[in-house]
């Protein structure tokens, strides 16, 4: 990138159930946390890029921008997207174009308010024909797993290993979340629990394979490279950010074992950043399911297609789980991932950036990743909208 946008502060709420709070109280909390971190005032913001996936459906909020204007007494431009990554992408473009120098990027979602209808809403957003045919938010993940098993001819003992590896993904993410004060599920689970939940329903994937329904908000302050150094001693730079799009209709896609959009977005982001996957030791992927984490690692180029499940290492149960690829460790979803950190759609991407920001700055506390005694130089986040319909890849770096 020519001029590199820089993140100078991040903030978030705990993800989970926030029955007592209005949606705007959540974004306020996230914004306050971020603004305190870099000592910025509301009046310093030149624009706001916010995201929510379906607040107008879940909370019957119309123009959220107006609510936020009332709340903040700000009259700056505000744009709403469906994910934090999309907001960040738009904000980066504006900063690179020299239109603004400091903007707020935030995301919010309040899904538990509509607990009884949320799965229908999610499915209708994902693909209407699949919804009409009886699909659920879980079915495409299970069908992708079926396609994967068939394509790579995984049977017998290998199939059992694959199933255990997928269970390890959930166990690893839960263990990481115990060290994340903002995570929705700060408790460990066991491989037996994951396998037992599948067996209880006689299905390929069970309760512990899927991310939960969550409320939450996240925020970050994005500024220009020149401005950043005045605001914080260690800005984190956006080295590459890109998106790609695929069919809404999953059955109609060419390859049912991969997310083409993720591959393309990663390719373009790597090119912008001028690095390779081998340079990236910390990754936040969009693990709406354990299958999605596994397949995403292949799509991002960390593993060969059909092999990600063979690369999981360490004791996932005590939090030392990681992937080993070509002799190098890759740490995935250190915040607990969507599985354990939570998945308030419109805010989720912010939590991914939050985690990378903390990891790169060496501020991740008990879950800090160290490569040769130092915190990682580069990190990468993959966020999806829909079932791989849109993919956003963001690559962050310390310098």
């Amino acid at each position, binding site marked *: 990138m020519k001029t590199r946008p820089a993140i100078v502060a991040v903030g978030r709420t705990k993800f989970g159930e926030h029955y007592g709070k209005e949606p705007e109280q959540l974004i306020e909390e996230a914004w306050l946390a971020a603004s305190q971190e870099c000592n910025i005032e509301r009046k310093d913001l030149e624009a706001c890029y916010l995201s929510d996936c379906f607040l107008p459906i879940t909370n019957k909020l119309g123009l959220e921008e107006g609510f936020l204007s009332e709340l903040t007494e700000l009259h700056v431009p505000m744009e709403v997207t469906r994910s934090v990554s999309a907001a960040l992408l738009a904000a980066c473009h504006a900063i690179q174009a020299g239109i603004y120098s400091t903007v707020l990027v935030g995301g919010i979602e309040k899904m538990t308010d509509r607990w009884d209808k949320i799965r229908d809403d999610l499915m209708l957003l994902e693909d209407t024909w699949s919804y009409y045919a009886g699909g659920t938010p*879980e079915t495409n993940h299970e069908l992708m797993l079926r396609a994967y098993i068939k394509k790579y001819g995984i049977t017998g003992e290998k199939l059992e290993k694959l199933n255990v590896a997928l269970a390890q993904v959930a166990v690893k993410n839960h263990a990481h979340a115990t060290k994340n004060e903002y995570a929705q599920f700060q408790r460990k689970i066991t491989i037996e629990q994951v396998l037992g939940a599948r067996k209880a329903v006689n299905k390929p994937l069970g309760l512990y394979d899927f991310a939960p329904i969550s409320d939450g908000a996240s925020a970050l302050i994005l500024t220009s490279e020149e401005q950043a150094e005045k605001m914080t001693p260690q800005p984190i730079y956006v080295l590459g950010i890109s998106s790609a799009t695929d069919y809404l209709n999953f059955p109609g896609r060419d390859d049912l074992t991969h997310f083409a959009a993720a591959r393309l977005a990663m390719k373009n982001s790597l090119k912008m950043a001028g690095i390779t996957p081998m340079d990236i030791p910390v990754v936040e992927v969009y693990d709406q399911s354990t299958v999605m984490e596994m397949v995403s690692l292949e799509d991002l180029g960390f593993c060969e297609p059909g092999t990600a499940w063979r690369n999981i290492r360490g004791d996932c149960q005590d939090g030392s789980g990681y992937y080993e690829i070509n002799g190098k460790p890759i740490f995935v979803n250190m915040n607990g991932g969507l599985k354990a950190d939570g998945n308030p759609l419109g805010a989720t991407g912010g939590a991914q950036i939050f985690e990378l920001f903390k990891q790169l700055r060496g501020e991740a506390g008990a879950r800090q990743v160290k490569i040769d005694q130092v915190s990682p130089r580069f990190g990468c986040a993959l966020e999806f909208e829909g079932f791989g319909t849109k993919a956003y890849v963001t690559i962050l770096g310390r310098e």
Partner: protein
Amino acid sequence: MSSEPIERRVSYLGDRLKASRCKICGKEYFEVRDYCGNCGRKSFGKMESIDLFYEKGKLELCTLVREPTNKFTKLGNYIYGIISFHNGQIRVPGRLTDQIIGDNEEIDFSSLEGREVVPRFRRRYSVGKSDVVPTISLAFTFADEYYPHQEYKTVQPTKEYDVPGIVGYGVYVSRFRIKEGNIERAVPFIDEDAITAAVEAGKLALIHSGVDSALVGKIYVGSESNPYAVKPIASKVAQVLKLGEEEGDVQGVDAVDTEFACKAASSMFKDAAALVNYPNLGIKYAMVIGADNSQAAPRGCPGGELDLFVGYGAAAFIFGKHDVIAEIEGWYSCTSDTPDFWRRDGEPFPMHGGRFTGDPAYFKHVKKATSKLMEKLNLKASDINYFVTHQPNPQFPVRVAKELGFKEEQYAASLQINKFGNTYSGCSPIGLASILDVAKPDELIIITSYGSGAGSDAYLLRTTSQIVDKRQRQKLTVRAQADNPFVKYVDYPTYRRLKLGL
């Protein structure tokens, strides 16, 4: 709140599984497309419409749904997956229907994947009582089970007859049955109703007749269990089966529903025959369907006696003057205002007059119409090969046949009450179909319907030589459905639940 415009769009595409094919590169797409993604602008105007309604698909991948979204909860557990058509050119999502899967059942997905499936026209999901009934054909059954895949091939007619008659027919009865004593009765699956049965029967009649659906100028659907008080079943049948000349998204056909208890359909046989006989009108064929998810109050409640006999099914007949399999030689109808069985508007179940449904109602009208017809045509009972009548229970049709002088060999073959139950508007028509399935050329059939309220229509039919030629076109005969190895039996509570529908 309603969503008619959207419902119209979804069912317009989904009922028929409309698709498109690029005439330049051959790429196929589910749904209607104005241009091809491959060929871009140059493909405008070069996309041809195709559909998957009569096609056979393959279940590529599947999984089990145990926790459906809200509108699907009444379906219970079901298999959901991806179905491919045309060697994988088109892939669609779909659920398998006609399966009851227990909570503890283990499914081996790999044993299902790769099998051939047939798209079935069904209710899509549950909606509120005041909403439009949503339908779709993204429901599938295995082609090697109850319902085989059958191609629909139009056949150029070879012979024109002087009098109109039946040129093809189809009977549809669901896969599920309840068995109590000697009686088996058909039970709809939870996503079936009178509308879906009517479409199925009509589809099978088109397959059997080989008639080009565009030449069907009129469709009558008789039913007493239409889920709507106002909105015809016939319009759905016309749209899904593409009856009449298609102009844009409108069919050039007259579609109307009729109601007269169990003779709602049989009443219209003569109207259909008269219509196709009208000179210079251009209506070559007319279709009549009798379809019912026969209603009955639960046992022990007023009117609950009917619950012992009610069934589910439909029969469709196509009338015309070309390639006739049974000519209509005459008819006689009679009516009296006898309220022996009725259902008030808004009530879910019918009531009946107990012992007054027999002699002063059923027997009086069936005997009157049959004997008058024979008198008119100067025939004796012994001249007739087959006698078919309405079958509200196992006893009535036998008694009335005997009282009219018919012998067991003349009436026994038509009795389907012990197999399917009383299918109301579909009842005597299914009886007729069972005879047409076996009759030889040049045989005489009398069918006398009965509709409470009350009246009867008696028809004399004479089979032609073409009845034998056309028989091979239909695999799903009455017999195939009555004695099918894939029939599933359900218990009484399940039967009541399935009948109530989505």
